[in-house]
């Protein structure tokens, strides 16, 4: 009994430590600007910070940009990642080299790619464009998602496809009608992960895009101006930026649990 109490107290403490900064950001976003740095928990509640963010800073535009870029890049990547991951899981496509190269491309520091990408995209007229950033995110996330999905496909018994193919399906039909639905939780989890990665990306968004196509992380960074950090606005922006991540986390939790247990279905 005592042990239970102790461990619960410990856990609650840990949760508070982890959540405190986030809660404090939320609190700062809701109090008037002049109270931002006070230690009072909730001296007054106002939505002015949010209003200012949208009215003066065009934050709605940034938010939409982020949603478009992160969403589209996932839509672009997932089919490619699913098919490549399946090929890697089931055939000898590309051999070891292709698998290694896929993983190795993840080891490059992003900065190493940023400059060449900028030069290339300037030539192609893809700088300061949502399409350009979407393509970059799709390219960056592809290897990682391939790798994750390969693992999911490998855990699906091959006999399932054997059954589908003797039942009259083509290899493609077996993939489409049996493998994909069975792997759906894994694929959804991977998609959410890809979305989060794009949502949080800063470096490429900063280098490639200007103010009209800026994403949320870049917009938040620009609030730290030469005449100080507009902390109340930053807090409001961060709170809004976290929102999709919380929704995503909820999804991931659901899918990962399903995804991890689908192997037990005989």
């Amino acid at each position, binding site marked *: 009994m005592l042990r239970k109490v102790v461990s619960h107290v410990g856990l609650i403490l840990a949760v508070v430590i982890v959540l405190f900064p986030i809660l404090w950001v939320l609190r700062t976003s809701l109090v008037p600007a002049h109270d931002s740095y006070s230690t009072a928990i909730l001296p007054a509640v106002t939505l002015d910070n949010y209003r200012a963010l949208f009215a003066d800073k065009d934050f709605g535009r940034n938010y939409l940009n982020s949603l478009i870029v992160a969403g589209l890049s996932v839509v672009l990547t997932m089919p490619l990642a699913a098919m490549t991951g399946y090929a890697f899981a089931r055939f000898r496509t590309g051999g070891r080299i292709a698998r290694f190269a896929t993983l190795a491309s993840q080891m490059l520091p992003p900065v190493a790619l940023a400059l060449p990408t900028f030069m290339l995209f300037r030539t192609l007229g893809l700088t300061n464009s949502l399409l350009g950033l979407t393509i970059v995110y799709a390219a960056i996330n592809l290897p990682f998602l391939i790798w994750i999905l390969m693992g999911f496909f490998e855990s699906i*018994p091959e*006999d*399932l496809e*054997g*059954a*589908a*193919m*003797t*039942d*009259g*399906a*083509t*290899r493609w*039909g077996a993939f489409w*009608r*049996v493998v994909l*639905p*069975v792997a*759906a939780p894994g694929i959804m989890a991977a998609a959410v992960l890809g979305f989060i990665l794009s949502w949080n990306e800063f470096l490429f968004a900063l280098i490639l895009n200007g103010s009209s196509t800026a994403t949320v992380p870049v917009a938040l960074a620009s609030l730290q101006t030469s005449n100080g950090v507009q902390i109340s606005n930053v807090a409001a922006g961060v709170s809004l930026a976290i929102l999709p991540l919380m929704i995503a986390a909820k999804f991931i939790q659901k899918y990962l649990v399903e995804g991890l247990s*689908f192997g*037990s*279905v*005989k």
Partner: protein
Amino acid sequence: MPAIKLNNISRDYGLGIFGVQDVSLDIEEGEFMVLLGPSGCGKSTTLRMIAGLEETTSGEISIAGRDVTRLAPRARNVAVVFQSYALYPHMSVRENMRFGMKMRKTPRAEQEARIAQAAEVLGLQAYLDRKPSALSGGQRQRVALGRAIVREPDVFLMDEPLSNLDAKLRGEMRQELVKLHRRVGKTTVFVTHDHVEAMTMGDRICIMRNGRIEQVGPPLEVYARPRNTFVAQFLASPAMNLIPAELTASDGGIALGAGPIAGPLPAREAAAYRAGVGRALQFGLRAEDIATEAKPGTLPFEGSVTAVEALGNENLIAVESGGHRIAARVDRHFLPKLGETVTLHADLAHMHLFDAADGEALVREA
């Protein structure tokens, strides 16, 4: 025309590793053929090659007279029951059964009729709308069967479909399957490593080892005349007793010397095995061909009891004599103690002789 003809088929994995090597086998229309052999002998590979799920690196396979060697699985009109059942986890039992018919564009009404009939035969009516994950092992097994039946394929291919069931259910399903086969009358290839399944279910059995066929024939015939020591030992439990032996000619007859089992052969056996005189041999005798009482044509031998397994209906005992261990299946009333010396009688009417070097059976003349 055989229903399935395997002509010298091989599966070469490269680097000299063969899953199946030079297998030739004719399976007749409506026949229940059992592929039997130890783990890794190539049974599954053979089955998957027939289904088209495994590449045939050389040789030809024809089904119903049509060369299917290079055809995709869907073009072969075979149905496979996998050891793991491989039910589609995201579909209900009904959808699982419907899938193959849908792929083949069977009319909807026909689909319903076949599902209803299969569900009735297999006792699955109550489960049609459940997902496979909500079924017991035996029920899943029946769904896998049902999924194959509704397709009305040319050939059923079954890879150890009973091995995941408990002993009682396995016995029941064995009989169900045989009954079903009689009703449907379709050519069936059934893989197992269980010799009881092979003996009781097969019209013929095909015993494999190391990717090759060792012997093909009706179960009782293979049992009575194993072609070599491998088949002799594999097709029974306990395995056939094998003892190094020789035959010597002695005053008109032939004398057997096989460890403790020594003496003149009965006239019929003497005539049948004349060719074995002077060769290095192995004497083989099944556990049930050792009696506790003398009869005409038996040779007595003594041994000390090293193991007793009382099964209720019979006893399995093992005796040790002159460095040879001999297993015997005896009457349940014959229950010696460990270490006790007993006299047993080898029934030579059922003896086997094999060449000591290559294990090939000596042909019994006459």
